[in-house]
């Protein structure tokens, strides 16, 4: 294959290195490099200058297949369940999303279903105050599913448009915590059959290949409708989402680019693909 189009091994090695360093992972990188070699063979790539654009396009296409729109309820409250491992940015993301939908004139409610971690409820309450969203909470240490249940009832009764359910961070390998998550999901579903309308898995862009295990195991506890990729304002590229989309069909819907209330953007595959090579 080499010798076509003046593209030498060094150039291809450089590309491979860029992908690995972006946390794309060995398996997905091999897939992408295979596509590049095919592209060279098929004369879709004819000079070294064609390499990056080709790869960007390939990655872009991998990330936009299927319908990735945010799903809203036809009537009654839309319920969005926010899940993920510890410290990735779930609570902060809910604050940002609350502001986003409040900005559209929607009535937003937040459920403080992290009843475990120190000051988790306080933290969410501050976001509720900042964004004009009512917060449903119980005592620290109470049953998270009970909080979720109460919140769904309250959301229905008060004509809420969007209800966000904040959950405690949990490592995907902790089966008792995964069971707790299943219960929260069930309780919500029992009250509103189509709910949660969105279940967002929050992934930290600094995370390496463990993100695959997170996506895999969390989706077994609650079907995931989308990913929020946070902390993209750092130097990490979040390349793991390519494999997650390819293998698990999970689209990225939002990206977090900072700690302030407006540091949230809809995911744009083209921008993301471009940033991988910067």
């Amino acid at each position, binding site marked *: 294959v080499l010798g076509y189009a003046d593209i030498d091994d060094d150039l291809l090695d450089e590309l491979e*290195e860029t992908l*690995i*360093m*972006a*946390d794309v*992972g*060995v398996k997905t990188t091999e897939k992408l490099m295979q596509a590049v070699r095919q592209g060279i063979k098929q004369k879709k790539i004819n000079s070294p200058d064609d390499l990056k654009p080709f790869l960007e396009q390939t990655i872009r296409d991998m990330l936009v297949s299927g319908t990735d729109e945010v799903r809203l309820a036809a009537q009654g409250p839309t319920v969005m369940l926010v899940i993920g*491992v*510890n*410290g*990735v*940015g779930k609570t902060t993301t809910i604050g940002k999303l609350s502001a986003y939908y409040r900005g559209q004139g929607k009535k937003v409610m937040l459920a403080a279903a992290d009843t*475990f*971690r*120190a*000051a988790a409820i*306080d*933290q969410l*309450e*501050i*976001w509720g105050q900042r964004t004009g969203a009512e917060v449903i909470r119980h005592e620290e240490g109470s049953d998270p599913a009970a909080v979720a249940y109460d919140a769904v009832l309250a959301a229905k009764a008060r004509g809420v448009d969007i209800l966000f359910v904040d959950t405690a961070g949990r*490592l*995907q*390998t*902790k089966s008792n915590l995964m069971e707790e998550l299943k219960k929260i999901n069930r309780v919500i579903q029992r009250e509103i059959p189509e709910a949660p309308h969105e279940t967002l898995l929050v992934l*930290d862009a*600094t*995370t*390496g*290949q*463990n*993100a695959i*295990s997170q996506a895999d195991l969390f989706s077994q506890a609650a079907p995931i409708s989308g990913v929020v990729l946070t*902390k993209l*304002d*750092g*130097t*990490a*590229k979040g390349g*793991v989402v390519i494999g997650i989309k390819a293998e698990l069909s999970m689209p990225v819907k939002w990206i977090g680019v900072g*700690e302030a209330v407006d540091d949230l953007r809809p995911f744009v595959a083209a921008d993301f693909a471009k940033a991988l090579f910067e």
Partner: protein
Amino acid sequence: GLADRLQATFKKLRGHGRLTEDDVNEAMREVRMALLEADVNFKVVKDFVKRVQERAIGQDILATLTPAQVVIKIVNEELTALMGGSQSRLNISSVPPTVIMMVGLQGAGKTTTAGKLGLALKKQGKHPLLVAADIYRPAAVKQLQVIGGQLDIPVYAMKPGTDAVTIAKTAVPYATAHAADVVIIDTAGRLHINEELMQELKSIKAEVKPQEILLVVDAMTGQDAVNVAESFNGDLGLDGVVLTKLDGDARGGAALSVKAVTGCPIKFVGMGEKLEALEPFYPDRMASRILG
């Protein structure tokens, strides 16, 4: 894991009395892949594999070990040596109080680890003071106060609007006045590329002259671990690293990356959300975990 893959690799090669360069090249491909899948940084993997390669070529295949086992043994030894020189001990000041600074990216586990360290030191007979110097995150001060309350460890905080440097520097004489001999400063999570916030850390360091600056790193961190560690080390000079959330299934290659680029010892690991879940770092255990 790697052992099985190497067995498979060597099955294809004829038995020799020694490992030839070709044998080793094949094996190094497997080692390289295993380390990358474990999130060890690309450049760190390159250097590491080179070292192993040099040691492996010409190695005698003893009757007691298969070629795969020889390579695994070398890889394990090199990994353990690289991450070792384990000092799971903190630098305690001869003149109290000892000052410890917790630093790192957002969400790594600094606040929780500050509590864990406080508990561990209290069990050793010390009198810690936790200092709430995260003035940005909503309810960060409250979080540390709740933790302090659970551990019966005092928490030093100042009224909202006070800057972090003032909080840190007034905490030290406060500790002395209240017979606290260890001051643990919890700082806000920040990006290593945020100059203003990195300057805040430098200012705190200049004021309190800590015996320990601990970089708290999430075990699931990928390739970026190198950038973070290099930056924090370059700006502050690190005394140690704490690797958190090792109770999950992250392979933890970040441990090797961080050690390789900073030379800084990994002193402790976080093994859970409970405040008792702090353990010393064992390089040999980490090595086998990384290799899968």
